[in-house]
């Protein structure tokens, strides 16, 4: 790929005090409530959050598809629309199918023709694994192939910024694995990548940084390892009478503990360590269940929403 003049990607992506409100049937819906994020050129960042967190709304504003009600967005120092017109952005939007009656190659070729410095069409088909079905009509593709063709449309523009909004939704396990390996190869060319997902594992495996969103706000932002430690907790549930939760919270691998009647619920940073320690010290513990904490629960905790269980948590 040709080296871009550094000035073209100066400034990375900046979101300052971004606000977006929609009119809803029961009053205004505050989709995005003030977001400040900067993403440096060359970074791969994940926008992580449950459905309704405001990820797609944020992406729409970043792509110039929607106007913020407050705040500003700049992409490489320019307003989004200008960055789009300059061919700096390639994106795979959430959901959506392909138009009919064209072959995969015709579709990708047409898209490439719109950009100043596109990727070779054969290369785009090759890396997305569409070579074998290049002459197929788009309406004949399977769900996973359609997603790959949409991905080819995004990368054939050879963009400085690649935006992917929940790209793996229609894919099976194998499809996902392939998809992310192509994405990482693209990011390795020094391009900036931002993807939205509600899977912590996807963010962890494919991004340098995760930006956690909930209820239209950024609730945590940092290296994925750090985020994973904060939200990737498992819950250990056991029946165990007469032990003070604050004592349990001190067990290795346990972040916090609470009691519900005879049951204790331990939030674990390392559930393997926690269960060994628990059974060693309290052989009476029984009915043990270990579950992966859902992202939604973690978000509730991080956002500090008024919630009985959260307020009962006992810190170690």
């Amino acid at each position, binding site marked *: 790929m040709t080296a871009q003049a550094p000035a073209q990607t100066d400034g990375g992506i900046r979101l300052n005090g971004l606000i977006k409100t929609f009119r809803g049937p029961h009053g205004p819906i505050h989709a995005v409530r003030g977001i400040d994020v900067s993403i440096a050129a060359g970074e791969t960042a994940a926008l992580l959050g449950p459905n309704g967190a405001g990820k797609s709304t944020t992406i*729409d504003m970043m792509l*110039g598809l929607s106007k913020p009600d407050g705040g500003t967005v700049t992409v490489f120092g320019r307003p989004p629309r200008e960055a789009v*017109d300059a*061919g700096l952005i390639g994106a795979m939007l959430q959901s959506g199918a392909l138009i009919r*009656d*064209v072959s995969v190659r015709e579709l990708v070729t*047409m898209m490439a023709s*719109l950009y100043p410095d596109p990727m070779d069409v054969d290369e785009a088909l090759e890396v997305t694994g569409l070579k074998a079905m290049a002459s197929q009509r788009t309406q004949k593709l399977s769900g996973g192939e359609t997603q790959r063709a949409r991905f080819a449309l995004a990368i054939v523009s050879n963009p400085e910024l690649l935006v992917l909004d929940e790209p793996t939704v229609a894919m099976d396990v194998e499809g996902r694995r392939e998809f992310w390996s192509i994405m990482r190869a693209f990011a390795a060319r020094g391009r900036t990548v931002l993807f939205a997902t509600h899977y912590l594992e996807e963010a962890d495996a494919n991004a340098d940084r995760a930006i956690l969103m909930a209820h239209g706000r950024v609730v945590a932002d940092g290296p994925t390892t750090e985020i994973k430690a904060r939200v990737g907790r498992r819950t250990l549930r056991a029946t165990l009478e007469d032990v003070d939760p604050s004592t349990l919270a001190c067990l290795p691998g346990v972040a916090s503990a609470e009691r519900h009647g005879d049951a204790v619920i331990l939030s674990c940073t390392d559930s393997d360590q926690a269960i060994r320690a628990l059974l060693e010290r309290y052989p009476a513990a029984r009915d043990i269940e270990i579950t992966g904490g859902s992202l939604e629960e973690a978000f509730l905790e991080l956002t500090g929403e008024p919630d009985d269980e959260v307020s009962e948590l006992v810190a170690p």
Partner: protein
Amino acid sequence: MSGLAYTRFELVRTFRNRRFYIFSIGIPILLYWVIAAPQHNKIITGTAFTYGIYYMVSLASFGTMMSMLSTGARIAGERQVGWTRQLRISPLSVRAYFRAKILTAYAMALLSLCLLYISGAILGASLPAERWLEMTGLIVIALVPLAALGILVGHLITTDSAGPAMGGLVTFLALLGGTYFPITGGVLHTIGQLLPSWWLVQAGHIALHGRGWPVRGWITVLAWTAILATGAGWAYRRDTTKV
């Protein structure tokens, strides 16, 4: 250059969709043969024209209008699958997008017109060459506001409302424009003359009586072009959300 590639792409795509052009081009031709063929040389009572020529001219305006408005149904379909949003985040200009849509609609309309002329010739409709030319020229001009209307409607409706919306609009414009039967007086006449479709029908009638548009016709067509083109631009710009 990029815009031209998109226009070519649109043309290829449109003419591959057989169902689409069989219905939008085939129906006027079929109607013509059904109505005119059995009695093509017979003079319509009260006029000086044969069935062959009268219905060729009437269906020319109906067929070309359908081609223009069918753009709307196609755009609604493209929006439904998210293609319009995908194009929005590419450097394709608004101008190139409109050009492709308009040229594709015209390609359909001209094909429809040619097939009707050929059918007319087969059924014995004959006209001096300059009448054919003048009629065709004015039809092409009268279709400009309708091309804009197709785009405008396409960005406002959804696929499930496309059928009734398009059917209703074509019927309304054709009826008040005087396609189905001549409107010679009264309120309908006054209203009809304010519509672009009226002048499309009048353009066809040049073949019959050889009179071009009065100034009023030109002004009406121009005014509708300005209004509908502005509307189409507005509808396209605001249409950025998921459908």
